[in-house]
């Protein structure tokens, strides 16, 4: 199902399949003004969900670009990226079907006007995943759990909404692409159900790296990397207190989503329905605190 690739630069006859990838390490370089990074090493292991946080312009996207590019002290940050603790061969980048990394950004799009199922079958064929008969159905099903607006398989790809596109991109990378490492750049704006998405993604043993402004994604991650002026400033692991807080933030977030849904459905917000939801939220947070 996955590509085989040589694994060392000195032509040793070793090889590694996409399934063999078990960790990615980033070795620190420097920030925008040449300052050395405080974080000198960070390791992502299979199953990890990691967030990159920091204000706009703090170097979040550059960080995932370094991962995508197999940075080897040859990008503006001077960082190095290792797979399974060793420098990966650049040749991995040559063929996207052998590349262990999938990057999905806000700009990533489908341009083909083929029907969704035809396109997915085509991709599955390239990946030799088509022997697996239900792969297209599985992919669609997964995408449909990520987005609130179900994708019809006869729809043409270009008809999909932003949220549907993003959901299908993720589902395709996870299931058909079987990518061990997914980099997701600010996908929260696209109408993906975030809490649900994280729950679902955790069922797959992969490395998920989110560049995000969303507190919910950040707090539900195994750890977060805090960026400042182009450099990795800190690594924070959530503690017990944050575990309680995330629960409340989740409820707050759900509340906002419910309000949004009401607006979408042409309802009027009133003290009454707002009050009910708010007091439910407050009482639940008291519970968790006590």
């Amino acid at each position, binding site marked *: 199902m996955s590509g085989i690739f040589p694994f060392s630069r000195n032509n040793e006859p070793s090889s590694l399949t996409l399934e063999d990838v078990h960790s990615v390490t980033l070795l620190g370089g420097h920030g925008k003004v040449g300052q050395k990074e405080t974080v000198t090493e960070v390791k992502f292991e299979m199953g990890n969900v990691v967030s990159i946080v920091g204000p706009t312009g703090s170097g979040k996207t550059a960080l995932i*670009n370094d991962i995508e*590019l197999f940075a080897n002290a*040859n990008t503006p940050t001077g960082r190095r990226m290792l797979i399974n603790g060793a420098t990966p061969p*650049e040749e991995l*980048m*040559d*063929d*996207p*079907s052998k590349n262990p990394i*999938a*990057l*999905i*950004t806000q*700009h*990533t*799009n*489908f*341009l*083909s006007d083929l029907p969704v199922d035809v*396109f*997915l079958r*085509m*991709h599955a064929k*390239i*990946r030799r995943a088509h022997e697996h008969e239900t792969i297209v159905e599985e992919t669609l099903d997964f995408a449909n759990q990520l987005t609130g607006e179900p994708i019809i398989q006869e729809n043409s790809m270009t008809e999909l909404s932003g949220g549907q596109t993003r959901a299908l*991109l993720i589902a*395709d*990378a996870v299931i*058909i*692409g079987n*990518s061990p490492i997914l980099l997701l750049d600010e996908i929260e704006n696209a109408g993906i159900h975030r809490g649900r998405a994280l729950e679902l993604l955790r069922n797959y043993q992969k490395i998920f790296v989110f560049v995000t402004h969303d507190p919910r994604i950040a707090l539900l991650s195994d750890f977060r990397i805090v960026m400042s002026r182009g450099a990795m400033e800190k690594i924070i692991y959530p503690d017990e207190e944050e575990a309680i807080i995330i629960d409340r933030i989740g409820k707050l977030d759900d509340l906002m989503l419910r309000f949004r849904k009401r607006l979408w459905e042409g309802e009027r917000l009133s003290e009454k329905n707002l009050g009910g939801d708010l007091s439910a939220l407050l009482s639940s947070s008291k519970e968790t605190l006590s």
Partner: protein
Amino acid sequence: MKLIICAGPPTCGKTTVLKQVTNKLLAQGRRVAYLKEDVQFAEEATMFSEEFGIPSKAAYSGEICPDHSHVLILKEAVEWAEKNQADIFIVETAGLCLRCAPYVEGGFAICVLEVTSGMNLPRKIGPMLTLADIAVVTKIDLVSQAEREVFRMNLTEVAPIPVIETDALHGINIDRIVREVEKSPEIKQPMVLRGNPPLAVCTICAGKKEIGWENHFGVVRTLESDPFYQGE
């Protein structure tokens, strides 16, 4: 001197790629000269000379088919670059005619295609792709990985050459192109076109508008005949 000839459909990102490549070559101490061949207007040469301070030149084909024009002027252009002590001469061609290929034997040929122009594009391009040494696929930042894979498969089915994917705007993967350029041979005289594209210098290309083969010189044909030569 190395001769790098770059072709690709309009706005596919040739200039963007070549600027990134030039930047890296200059950083390695290479002396680069640049020629842009276009139909009637191009600001690239000015851009290259202002941005990089390297010898740059524009050549307009005007009334002549740009590929024909290329064949006619390339020899002198190479001499110009040599006189300017370039060790890498980059020629960006207009690439309007999909049946011609401007590449020469002993030079290095880059075909640039944008992945955004549809997954079947590689099938629609003839010698410009199949006679190239490498294909550079631009704008990968804009499409899904799945489509990149389909595009790539369609491309390598038509032309089994190395494919380098790039987000040229952000300079991603440019090092790989630079390495291929560095590996390419030194150009030797006399230069000969790689393919046998329909490059007959014809009176149609020179702007004669009359319809009907009897009004033209050069390689012509009738509706039913094979092409033949008419003229001196």
